[in-house]
């Protein structure tokens, strides 16, 4: 699977065009184009390029950046990765909590105005354009109310000592309260933006399954025994609605990564996505290619992990 995906990346990037002429524009002298092609190994036949590409990947070598001291691409990606991870974790958690809560709320008021409103919310979150939503939040909470910072991960004077690269966790580990508060304040707006975007699918999923389950016999039995409504909903019903939600969580990672690219760009959050955006504007092709390969690998690995987790959660699944 990984091999196929990486091959597709190779095909897409090679067939789609010549990076060198795209980088230099149409007016560069031919000798210059040839020199850079040779330097990048693009003058060799396609199958050798392909083998080189795979060999380098096997050595975790994504090439060197085309600009600024030509640092290895992988180093630069890994430098930016913790920021993306931090944003992803918090947005993911937020989206699930929000989605499950609104879904349960909606299912309990089926076909009432509140239900319709939440269903509309489910569709609207699909249509949210992250940069625009982020802009609106920045305007309201950052510019006009002045409550929250609108860009970056932390105030440079308050950045915590880096241990894991996750600022919130680092602040806790170093017991640095001001930097903890600062990091969380920076995290709020990006989390809400990305979280709301991702939450719609959980809302819909939870609602559908809760409606089914609330009509089933064991819920009626629980009601007959006189259990409090809260126990019925959250302990009995939600537990059973959780398996499809878990499936969806695995499927959402791809969307999460794509959403993170836009969210990071919107909030100048220095993660992989913002890094990709920066390098796109410099036409730094090796870095762009490396980042995309990295993301592809990440997606394959995550789906593998999710498959393994399934087996533990649901013993009926066998491979």
């Amino acid at each position, binding site marked *: *699977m990984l091999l*196929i*995906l990486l091959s*597709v*990346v190779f095909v*897409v*990037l090679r067939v*789609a*065009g010549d*990076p060198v002429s*795209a980088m230099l524009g149409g007016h560069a002298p031919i000798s210059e184009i040839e020199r850079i092609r040779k330097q990048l190994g693009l003058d060799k036949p396609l199958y050798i390029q392909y083998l080189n590409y795979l060999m380098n990947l096997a050595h975790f070598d994504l090439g060197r950046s085309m600009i600024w001291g030509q640092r290895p691409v992988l180093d630069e990606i890994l430098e930016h990765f913790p920021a993306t991870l931090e944003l992803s974790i918090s947005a993911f958690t937020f989206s699930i909590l929000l989605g499950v809560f609104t879904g349960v709320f909606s299912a309990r008021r*089926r076909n009432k105005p509140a239900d*319709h409103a939440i*269903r509309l919310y489910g*569709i*609207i979150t*699909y*249509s*949210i*354009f*992250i*940069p*625009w*939503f982020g*802009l*609106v939040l*920045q*305007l309201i909470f950052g*510019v*006009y109310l002045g409550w929250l910072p*609108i860009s970056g991960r932390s105030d440079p004077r308050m950045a915590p000592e880096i241990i894991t690269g996750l600022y919130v966790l680092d602040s806790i580990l170093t017991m640095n309260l001001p930097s903890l508060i600062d990091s969380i304040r920076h995290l709020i707006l990006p989390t809400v933006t990305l979280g709301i975007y991702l939450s719609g699918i959980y809302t*819909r999923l939870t*609602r*559908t399954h809760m*409606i089914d389950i609330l009509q089933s016999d064991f819920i009626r039995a629980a009601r007959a025994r006189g259990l409090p409504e809260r126990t019925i909903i959250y302990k009995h019903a939600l537990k059973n609605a959780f398996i499809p939600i878990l499936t969806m969580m695995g499927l959402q990672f*791809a*969307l999460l*990564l*794509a959403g993170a*690219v*836009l969210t990071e*760009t919107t909030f100048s959050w220095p993660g992989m996505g913002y890094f*990709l*955006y920066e390098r*796109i*504007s410099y036409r730094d*092709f090796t870095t*762009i*290619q490396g980042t*995309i390969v990295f*993301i*592809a690998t990440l*997606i*394959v690995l995550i*789906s593998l992990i999710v498959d393994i987790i399934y087996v533990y959660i649901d013993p009926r699944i066998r491979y």
Partner: protein
Amino acid sequence: MANLTAPKMITSMLSKISPRRGVEGLFIIVGLAIILTFIFMAIFAPVLAPYDPNKTRVGGLYESPNPKFPMGTDRLGRDILSRIIWGSRTVLIVTFLSMALSSACGVTLGLISGYVGGKFDTALSLFMDSLYAFPGLILAIALAVMLGQGIMPVTVSLTVVYVPIYFRMIRSEVLSMKESLFVEAARAIGAKGRTLIFKYIFPNVIPSIPIVLSLNAADAVLTLAALSFLGLGLPAHIPDWGFDLRMGYGALTAKIWWPGTFPGLMIVLLTLGFSLFGEGLAEILNPKLSGR
């Protein structure tokens, strides 16, 4: 083909809307109204737009919304309303073109691959599945980086993103239909491969296309906007909502909110139009799903 059948289906469906289905009916009507408004804007852009969208300094720089410029002016003194109206043309051209191309490619390949089967089918499915596994935006970025700027490159990038969706859907339908009685009967009376595919199987897969088409259009509007937001979309002389939104960040801290807010709002509205339309269509065409 799919586009031609869609209106006919809608009219027959609108007559089916009962009070119980009121919400779905409303979804379709509102969605359709939004889409048609934007199409109207795109077609009559030269008449509707009060100023030349690319002419700088038709007013002051960053003029706030006022009667002369209902949406204000941007950093170069261009009229934002005119840019939005012309921008709708760009967005709709790219969206409709890429939808037409991707559905044509995806449906044809899906039909052939599902019908022929064998190694050809395995290889093609594997390729499509791995394209599908990619997040659409990342794939579009990879393609757009290589293809360069302009309407055609962006359209092609979007097309490649959506082909696998049609391919997978159609292929699975063909696989189940291939074994059905009426296809067998057609084969028994001597129908050959091409007739079988296009005369017997194809008409039966049409109904599932409009929903996907509409939902994909919603997604395509967002992906296009994201590409141009990231600076990969269209050359500067083509008015485009995503790029205008990006530029709107420039003066945010000075409380200049209008250059970004309005183009972004248009992106969201058009996407909402397509998704409402698609959702409503899905609910009505597929009663099994109703209540979701």
